[in-house]
């Protein structure tokens, strides 16, 4: 896979990371950056097109069905997307890597049980598993993070397992063991540092996927609940007003697209560089 790496590296080294940084800044400093309160309604200024002016202030990206500023909601919406994705990647990564490394290093019946479990989880389409679990637990920020972690940990487990198997037979691991290092010490100090690259590639690509999943759940009304601004729920509203107010759906969707695209680009290039662990 060197071809793409070589042609893309030069032109694309900085902008996906830059874009991600911009979105993180938006999320962190939303309070100062947003021109309006994202939840403030203005029933006289409903469904106004981008550039609409009211009381000396401009609605740069228009207003939604309750007269709320689309740009402000977009900026605040970055919080939900980034936070949910980051937390679920951390949680599922932690669980998955632990399971995968344990299975790959301890072997025996532990390996059989854990990896069979991974297979079972992977055989339910992730979005369906997420939907049924959220439907049971009820929507909301914490539940969405938990559900995404529950559905996605097997992906990390697979990679961590394969990588651990490959590393565990190397001489330096045998040496560490023969010198009396405990399994935990071997895993944490000798194996983990050597498999972290492929895991980071998976995590980056998963980050993009988690953004999409969160938006998908919110789009279906199962994510973070209104009035909290989230790109998925903005799109869901926008779908209903598509004939009269296209801007409500257009901008959050575009933001989602850019965020996922930059995560995919970073993951891809990173994968090319370290020689793809997927």
């Amino acid at each position, binding site marked *: 896979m060197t071809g793409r790496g070589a042609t893309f590296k030069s032109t694309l080294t900085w902008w996906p990371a830059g874009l991600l940084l911009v979105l993180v800044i938006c999320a962190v400093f939303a309070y100062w950056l947003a021109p309006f309160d994202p939840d403030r309604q203005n029933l006289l200024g409903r469904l106004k097109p981008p550039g609409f002016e009211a009381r000396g202030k401009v609605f740069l990206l228009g207003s939604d069905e309750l007269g709320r500023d689309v740009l402000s909601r977009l900026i605040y919406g970055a919080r939900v997307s980034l936070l949910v994705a980051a937390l679920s990647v951390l949680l599922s990564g932690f669980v998955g890597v632990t399971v995968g490394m344990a299975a790959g290093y301890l072997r025996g019946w532990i390996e059989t049980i854990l990896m069979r479990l991974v297979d079972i989880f992977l055989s339910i389409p992730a979005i369906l598993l997420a939907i049924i679990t959220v439907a049971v637990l*009820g929507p909301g920020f914490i539940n969405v993070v938990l559900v995404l972690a529950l559905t996605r940990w097997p992906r990390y487990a697979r990679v961590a397992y394969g990588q651990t198997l490959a590393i565990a037979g190397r001489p330096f691991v045998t040496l560490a063991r023969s010198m009396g290092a405990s399994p935990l010490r071997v895993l944490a100090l000798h194996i983990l540092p050597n498999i972290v690259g492929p895991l980071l590639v998976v995590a980056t690509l998963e980050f993009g996927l988690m953004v999409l999943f969160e*938006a998908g759940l919110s789009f279906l009304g199962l994510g973070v609940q209104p009035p909290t601004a989230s790109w998925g729920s903005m799109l869901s509203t926008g779908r209903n007003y598509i004939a009269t107010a296209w801007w409500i759906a257009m901008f959050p*969707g575009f933001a989602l*697209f850019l965020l*996922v*695209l930059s995560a995919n680009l970073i993951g891809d290039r990173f994968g090319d560089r370290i020689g793809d662990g997927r």
Partner: protein
Amino acid sequence: MLRFLLNRGGQALIAAFGVVTLVFFIQRLSGDPTALLLPETATQADIDAMRVTLGLDRPLIVQYWAFLSDLLRFDLGRSFVQNADVWDIVSSRIPKTLQLAFGALVVALLIGLPMGLIMAITRGKHVSKFIMWIVLACQSMPTFWSGIMMILVFGVWLRWLPSSGTGTFAHLIMPSIALGLLSLATYARITRAAVLDELGKDYVRSARARGVRTGRLVRHHLLRNSMIPIISITALELSQLLAGAVIVETVFAWPGLGLLTVQSIAARDFVVVQTIVLMGAFVTIFANLAADILYSVVDPRVRLAGQS
């Protein structure tokens, strides 16, 4: 071969059993599933009656056993919301979703394959780079956004295509494209990787040395030899498409299983949701099994590796 089949089939059975168990226990996460099975307007008397009907007063393990044996007898239960047999509700939607998944598969194959092929042949050139961008864009596109934007452009502005519903071929076009984009990206990538892999082999070099033209090389050698990964990924893509249908069907009000899932969640008709999730999982397990068997038929190394 038989040993491989038995081994792999056994794994699939275990996975199916595990999925059923998982779905059962996920439902118990909330404590009392009666609340999930009844509409919000249910009275306390309804809830009590339901508890008896479902046998929720029995120990969990007995309930689990009953759940399993019902499934084995293909008794999927009754929807109390719609007052109908779950299988009747679900089965009427299956053709619609299959139609959509098939449309998406056609879109993905017809566009994704040539894109991957061109990328591999023009590797390192601008064309390849440009197509890779399109692939990445397709891969990063939220289906609900691309769907809504298509509705805006072709449904609202240009009025070329109907923006929701079903019935004619025209209704199928936009949902198929929206659903197919992600698979398109997958196909393009897989094809590119497979063809690049073949391009590096000796027979290609000797064919080139004999003066075989690129067009002939592609038609007679590359495509045929690169087909294995492409075919096996199709099985997996099919289950991806069924899952993706949940969102696309919601966007386009396409009356298939996906829309039924969303409607059933809203109506708290959990028996239906559970059935669809189980179906999705079984299709995935079966598709994986089929792909593995297919793979082992084409490439015997696969099944030999399983024996060592």
